[in-house]
């Protein structure tokens, strides 16, 4: 199962440990993580369900440059959700 990791900066505000989730896309992986920590959703996604402007997602070390949450993930993918280093 893919594994989702959240930045320490997020864990400061919402408890969200790394977790294995049953998912084949980034969105499904995030939804599974949100189910375990409902407050987390509004920190990662905006009110329309889009990735927040200053949040970045990496899948297996590669940034989601197009910010498309439908991006597929593999059985052993590692997904990292971090704060974009906007402005230093």
């Amino acid at each position, binding site marked *: 199962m893919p594994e989702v990791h959240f930045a320490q900066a997020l864990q400061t505000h919402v408890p969200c440990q790394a977790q294995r989730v049953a998912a084949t896309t980034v969105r499904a992986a995030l939804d599974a993580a949100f189910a375990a920590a409902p407050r987390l959703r*509004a*920190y990662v996604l905006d*009110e329309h369900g889009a990735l927040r402007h200053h949040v970045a997602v990496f899948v297996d070390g590669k940034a989601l440059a197009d910010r498309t949450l439908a991006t597929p993930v593999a059985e052993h993918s590692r997904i990292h959700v971090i704060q974009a280093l906007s402005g230093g």
Partner: protein
Amino acid sequence: MSDRLLIGTKKGLFTVQRSGPGRWAFGPPAFPGVPVSMVCRDPRDGGELVALNHGHFGVKFHRSDDRGANWRELAAPACPPVPAGEPPIVDMIGRTIPQTLKDVWALVPGGKDQPRRLWCGTIPGALFRSDDGGASWTLVESLWHHPTRKLWMGGGADAPGIHSICVDPRDSRKLSIAISCAGIWHSSDDGATWEAACAGMRAEYAPPGQEFEPLAQDPHQMVRCASGPDRMWVQHHNGIFRSDDAGRSWSEIKQAGPSCFGFAVVVHPKHKDSAWFVPAKKDEFRFPVDGKFVVTRTRDGGKSFDVLSKGLPEAPAYDLVYRHGLDISQDGERLAMGSTTGGLWVSENGGDSWVGVSAHLPPVLCVRFG
């Protein structure tokens, strides 16, 4: 009289407690490192709400019902999406108006007969209503979808913002709000319908012939006298304005100490002719005139102004007080203000003299007696 202050800063929420005449002491901070845009203490139930603006993770609301001992996160207001297939909404000079919540610029209790009602103004210019103490929020659709909305402009921020909400204490269904930049708006039916009206308000920056257009006005802050609600005061982008008909028409005050430019204004809750301002050199500078940090006060409805500086720092002092950085206690006896350079001062004699509480806070965004 209030012995407690809530200070929203760029690096958290600070509380200050009075221990004796001129003596104020800090309690432990809350939300360290997180910008606190807005603070509201509801005098009807003692609840306290704060709006946080996480740089990366969006706007969040928290509420405490035990004077800050414990906080719980509540839902934040949400802007509606642009309907599928429709183009993004752009303003009159072609900039896209964001459709996601950027910041909270106003948070006020409703009337005494609306015990759980709160009003919230945001960037982008949206007004939200809560009838459950902030647990949930409803967009005021009539304003969001108003046909003039594309004529609203950002003023200081990229998008328009609602920063002042004044509920009429005689009739809670009557509201007046101020928007940077879209002038002054009024509703007499609890927000169902709205009308822009601010006759006499003048925008010196507008193109020739458009100086008195209601939507061109950039009120920086608007307040209403609690005991004389027809009297309102506005610190405007290019001047000070006074209304005696609940904000429908305004007269300009062109002389007020070193400058008529500034952001903050408060009015005495019992004496409508007494109001305080924190002047600055006008818009392209935004610091105290000649680096001399002062407060101006009128006690005669704007005919004359006192320039108050006792207890404030000597020049050079480049402190600027934002629109929500000045407050007056409910009995009018005390004033408090915080600055962009982290100064915090309290006056217990109507501004005649000030006591410095700190010179080293993070930049202050909001000061409220609690």
